[in-house]
């Protein structure tokens, strides 16, 4: 049976009714329906369902949503969909909180059909967040009707092999609104979230210090890392005129989720700061005016990065400024 929005929503309603009945039996300790947005996730067929599911349900606890996962299956010629309700028990509470979950399978050729289906499935009057997890950015054209109703579009260039085209794609998504206007959505890149810890550490260290005039950034892997690219852009946008030297310090590119930025150094009259993360692990050494101290940068996974993005209300001016001046070498 082809997927149909009305049928899927009816299915969800039935599930809720069932859960509601259990609630009566349970003397009021049943379930609560929670929803703050529609989260659409564009995923690949090969994405491990366990991993993706676990990640999204951990996210749901902070950001309850109707989650719709669209899996791109190149060889499929029909759109298929199924619904579930995901529940969890918050710490110290007696009542379960539940969010809705819809999974759609489709080939890229059916994206037009998927777009129509999604239009019927979003929760009315709540934000729509579109997370492009794996689908190549080029394929997004067919999903444009869905993009156009998104309040946020989230991409992740952290692992991009070609920074030049990744940055172009991000810039065009950020600017690409109807009739050359600003888009209705706010664009976010998880690679930007990867430098939050660096920025926070620098903000703490440089509080009350004069502005630096020169600096350097080093990373692991031959090609430039996108987080390093953003860190450079941020520093240049907040310290106009600063000169930053960019280079790789280690040809070996570490695995996914291991930090690639290794050294950030800032100097100038009255400023001498160096942050070193020798292995990309959690331990970071801060050397300020020759004095050494330790910092811990917890490992970042997709769920943490996504939660950070979803927690942001309003436009992210600092990211937009950085995007404008970002360079890839």
């Amino acid at each position, binding site marked *: 049976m082809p997927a149909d929005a009305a049928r899927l929503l009816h299915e969800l309603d039935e599930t809720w009714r069932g859960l509601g009945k259990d609630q009566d039996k349970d003397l009021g300790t049943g379930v609560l329906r929670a929803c*703050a947005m529609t989260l659409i996730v564009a995923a690949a067929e090969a994405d491990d369902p366990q991993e993706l599911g676990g990640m999204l349900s951990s996210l749901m606890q902070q950001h*309850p949503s109707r989650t719709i996962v669209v899996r791109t299956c190149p060889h499929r010629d029909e759109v298929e969909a199924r619904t579930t309700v995901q529940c969890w028990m*918050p710490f110290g509470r007696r009542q379960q909180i539940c969010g809705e979950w819809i999974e759609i399978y489709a080939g890229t050729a059916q994206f037009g059909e998927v777009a129509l289906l999604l239009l019927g499935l979003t929760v009315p009057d709540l934000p729509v967040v579109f997370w492009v997890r794996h689908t190549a950015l080029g394929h997004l054209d067919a999903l444009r009707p869905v993009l156009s109703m998104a309040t946020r579009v989230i991409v992740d260039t952290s692992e991009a092999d070609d920074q030049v085209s990744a940055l172009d794609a991000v810039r065009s998504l950020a600017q690409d609104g109807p009739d050359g206007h600003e888009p209705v959505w706010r664009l976010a890149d998880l690679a930007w*979230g990867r430098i939050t810890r660096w920025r926070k550490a620098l*903000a703490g260290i440089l*509080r*009350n210090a004069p502005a*630096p005039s020169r600096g350097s950034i080093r990373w692991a892997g031959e090609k430039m890392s996108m987080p390093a690219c953003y860190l450079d852009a941020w520093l240049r946008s907040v310290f106009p005129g600063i000169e930053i030297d960019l280079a790789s310090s280690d040809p070996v590119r570490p695995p996914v989720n291991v930090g690639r930025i290794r050294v950030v150094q800032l100097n100038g009259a009255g400023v001498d700061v160096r942050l070193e993360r020798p292995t990309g692990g959690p331990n970071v050494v801060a050397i300020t005016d020759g004095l050494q101290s330790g910092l811990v940068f917890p490992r970042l996974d997709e769920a943490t990065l996504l939660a*950070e993005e979803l927690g942001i209300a309003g436009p992210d001016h600092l990211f937009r400024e950085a995007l404008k001046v970002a360079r890839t070498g």
Partner: protein
Amino acid sequence: MAATQVLDDPLRFDRPAPPATVVIFGANGDLTQRKLMPALYRLAFERRLAPGFAVIGTSRTVMSDAEFRAKMRAGVEKYLEDSPFDAALWEEFERGLYYLAGDISGDALYHELGAKLAAVEAERHTGGNALFYLSTQPSYYARVAEGLGTAGLQRTEDPAAWRRIIVEKPFGHDQASARQLNASLHGVFEEPNIYRIDHYLGKETVQNILAFRFGNGIFEPLWNRRYVNHVQITAAENIGVEGRGGYYQEAGALRDMIQNHLMQVMATIAMEPPAVFDAATVRDERAKLLRSIRILKPDEVATHAVAGQYGPAQIGGERLAGFREEKGVAPDARTDTYAAVTLFIENWRWAGVPFYIRSGKRLPKRVTDIAIQFNTAPLSLFADGEPGKWPNLLVVRIQPEEGISLRFFSKRPGSGMTLRPVTMDFNYGTSFGERSPSAYETLLLDALLGDPTLYTRQDMVEASWAVVQPILDVWSGSRFEFPNYASGTWGPKESEEMLARRGHVWRIP
């Protein structure tokens, strides 16, 4: 230019609290164990405290640092709410806890404290910042300030370092003593460095009232005398005085709840929109509202205020003691364990709208909420509705389940036009899966960051005492037939009569 502000990104990371020592007077007490330490530990858990953070606890009981740490750990493990205890984190946190035994009434303590502060500053790099927390008997507040002043601890040589003082409730026991306490504090600390705590203002839902009122355009146009019929503010507890009879006997519900917490809640619900959201402007608006409350004349008190005291009751086979039988309470105590008042705000927005406020112990349940009762429809088309069943009502629930409900009439399914009140609920906890910080976490962090928005100011405290004082004066010369309500009921019948005079009834929350 200092890099300070340009590097901050309030969207993504919180401004870190500066390094500081929190000095707790009364560290051997109940509040420290129950609220302050769990809140500080939780802030450490959230990584909101600077590495150079320390606590010096002080009270008379002799304890080593290790004993103090063990006692605090037990408190945190017992009272930490909504989150698990992390032993590894505790070990890191407790390295910053120190203890100093001494008597507040003597001078020696303050000189020893000066030396201890200097030692802790050197060891923990606290930058000379100190936050003094008065968590001891209120009769000592002025004495502590004076002691700190004599030892010169209210200021430092370093112009970048700060010294602040947090004063717990109650702030005075009447208007005169509140003024006196303000004067004593001002003899040592400047007003911007005095943080008077009202933990109700730190509650997320009370802060949410401002978001609800001024972040949405829907409600504010209705928020005035044209549409609002009256407002009811309720803070009910089902428990009695629970071992605090001695303290409570002197305080009573009007002082303990209404003068401070509920009048701040009333100010938040009724204040004008601030022009900008900064500490001074928000506090100016709150203060302005409190000053606009009409002060009762002595002969109005009987019709505008009701005192009650609970008597014994038999509930479910169990006999509950009356207030006068509680430990530490005199058998002829005249304390109000229940108080209800009718207040009017004299401004263009609210003139003529009664604000009913009640608070009591041993009421049927624990609940704090604010109900805005809107006017009924001008014509009653559907006479078959259930009148008096509280539709047209917006309820802001503060505890236990925080949220906002709108009650309105809806057609009962089936033929005919029968109406029934229904509720539309917003539940804070389920819309945001995140845990809300406790009031003490919010307030302690704000004081460390130097943000006094959620603290009360001298003029606010004095304005609310000015409202309550005439009632206290009349009551102190009155003879009440106490007890006048049974435990487990909604208070004395005089309270119902007070509302009935204006054709209103208390809701059952």
